[in-house]
């Protein structure tokens, strides 16, 4: 018979801690959700934990369509589409670049591969702010400053060290014989990459997609500096909404806009969380 689980003092402490931790992370979300469906008259009462008495989605509609971001009052939807326009190509290109880099570094081992890799890794540890000004000048020189291709390029560059490391480690875990066999079969650089290595990379690609989408979607600084006023990403628009006050502060609209902005990474985690863990844990193919 299974021994009955008893509430020992240790167990009580454990549960107390877990509940506290859960509350700690859930309370802000609760406040945000609740506030976003309250009309301003209720918010003014000051009971931020109280449930709404007359729930309404007006604030959500306003946040999406007509909240003011500076002088324009078109809501956050423009920023949403800008973020999509920036995130999609940036994710795709940075993963392609990282995969090719990692593949070349771990299988073709060009002369100076180790040096190249160390330099790339150093790049990952230099704070991005150091590179801001030189990058602005460089992009301006090639006419890419303040454009979608420009910000995409910047994201690809900043994502490269991490993506290269990720793919290099994954490919290093594959047996070398596989590559040698393909070489004898006559495969060239691209043929082996597209027909053999890329189809085997699904787990690591899932991890890379989650990392890149989250990073690029959440990015504020690079978007603000490089995207240009027509292509400001959602994060920057959100900041503008919250900082634009005409009369009273519309807390419900701010809350709704914030939730809308964080919806994409949140959804991504919910959909692919399982694969994410699997991809990180497995790494290698089973023989």
């Amino acid at each position, binding site marked *: 018979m299974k021994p009955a689980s008893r509430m020992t003092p240790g167990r009580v402490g454990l549960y107390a801690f877990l509940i506290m931790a859960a509350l700690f992370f859930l309370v802000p979300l609760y406040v945000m959700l609740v506030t976003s469906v309250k009309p301003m008259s209720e918010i003014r009462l000051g009971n931020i934990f109280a449930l709404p008495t007359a729930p309404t989605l007006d604030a959500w509609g306003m946040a999406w369509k007509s909240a003011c971001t500076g002088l324009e009052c078109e809501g956050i939807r423009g920023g949403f589409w800008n973020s999509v326009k920036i995130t999609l190509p940036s994710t795709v290109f940075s993963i392609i670049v990282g995969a090719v880099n990692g593949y070349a570094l771990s299988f073709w081992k060009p002369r100076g591969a180790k040096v190249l890799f160390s330099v790339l890794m150093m790049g990952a540890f230099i704070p991005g702010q150091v590179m801001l000004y030189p990058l602005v000048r460089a992009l301006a020189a090639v006419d890419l400053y303040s454009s979608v291709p420009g910000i995409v390029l910047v994201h690809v560059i900043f994502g490269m060290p991490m993506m290269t490391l990720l793919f290099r480690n994954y490919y290093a875990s594959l*047996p070398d014989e596989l590559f040698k066999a393909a070489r004898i079969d*006559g495969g060239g650089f691209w043929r082996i990459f597209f027909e053999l290595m890329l189809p085997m990379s699904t787990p690591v690609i899932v991890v890379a997609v989650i990392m890149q989408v989250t990073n690029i979607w959440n990015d504020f600084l690079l978007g603000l500096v490089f995207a240009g006023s027509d292509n400001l990403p959602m994060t920057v628009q959100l900041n503008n909404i919250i900082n634009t006050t005409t009369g009273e502060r519309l807390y419900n609209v701010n809350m709704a806009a914030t939730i809308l902005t964080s919806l994409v990474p949140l959804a991504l985690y919910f959909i692919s969380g399982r694969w994410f863990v699997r991809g990180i844990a497995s790494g290698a193919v089973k023989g």
Partner: protein
Amino acid sequence: MSNVSIKNLQITLGDNKVIDSLNLEVKDGEFVVLLGASGCGKSTLLHSIAGLIDVSGGAIEIGGKDMTWVDPKDRGIALVFQSYALYPTMNVEKNMSFGLRINGTPKEEIKRRVARAAEMLHLQPLLDRKPANLSGGQRQRVAIGRAIVREADVFLFDEPLSNLDAKLRTELRRELKLLHKQLGATMIYVTHDQVEAMTLASRIAVMKSGVIQQFDTPDTIYREPANLFVAGFLGSPCMNMFRGELAVEGGRTLFRNEHMSVDVSGYAFRQPPVAGTRCVLGVRPEDTVVSSGGQYRAGTTLVEAMGAHRVLWMDFHGTQLAAIVQDERESGAFSIRSEAVSLFDETSELRL
């Protein structure tokens, strides 16, 4: 079909010379086994023939053409790996036809070749399966099939049977031998298993630390090992060794030490024997004849039953001896078939 000729080959990995001025001639259609303990450079040699390792000196010729710096795919070779190295995302058919699809072979021809290889290796029912759904033996068959499909002139095998269990190994070994007869292609096979080497090879090259110790037919290598290393490496149980010296007495040549004296007048000395040479006498266990009327007395320490025969371990003045017997009742003494012994110089370790 092609011969392979390796001239003064030098391979340096990192800072150490793995192979230094190695020469090897493999004839057209021959089955050559490179035999040696792990780390002796045999796989390195094979991979350099395949073009997967850059050489630092010397030349590799395949079919009379210098292939030292030619790309692996253009050498007319096929390589079978110990770990099979099947492409995990492709099914068996795609695995076998990958190389042909790359070099643009017409579809009909690909189909014909894959069908032929699949028939040879009994893979027809498995063509749609992914490697993950195959057993070890089946995987290695697919890997061999991939080599056959290439219709290469030279087949290279890198310990292809080492990952299989004993029964499968015996089975696939036989199939490989038959395959060689059927295809008639030149094959070079790396292994550390002496049974594989003895059964498969037309000639064996025994290697130790990057140097070929002896390159000859399996029989010659077994009966007339060129040095002490070869003598000790082949044969199970190992050759029995006695230390002593040569003596010449009244036209007869004797091997002598304090306990024994063996007439070796019939031995094919490479140079005329010199009395007083310190040497080692090697006797195979099957040439150590055990009978109660034997010349030398020795106590039995252990009997190993092998089914068809028994291995009798004896202690002869502190030396462990093995003898192969049919029946353990005969024991207590042994004699030596002096016409089947080997003699080695004690210092140079070379065959006398």
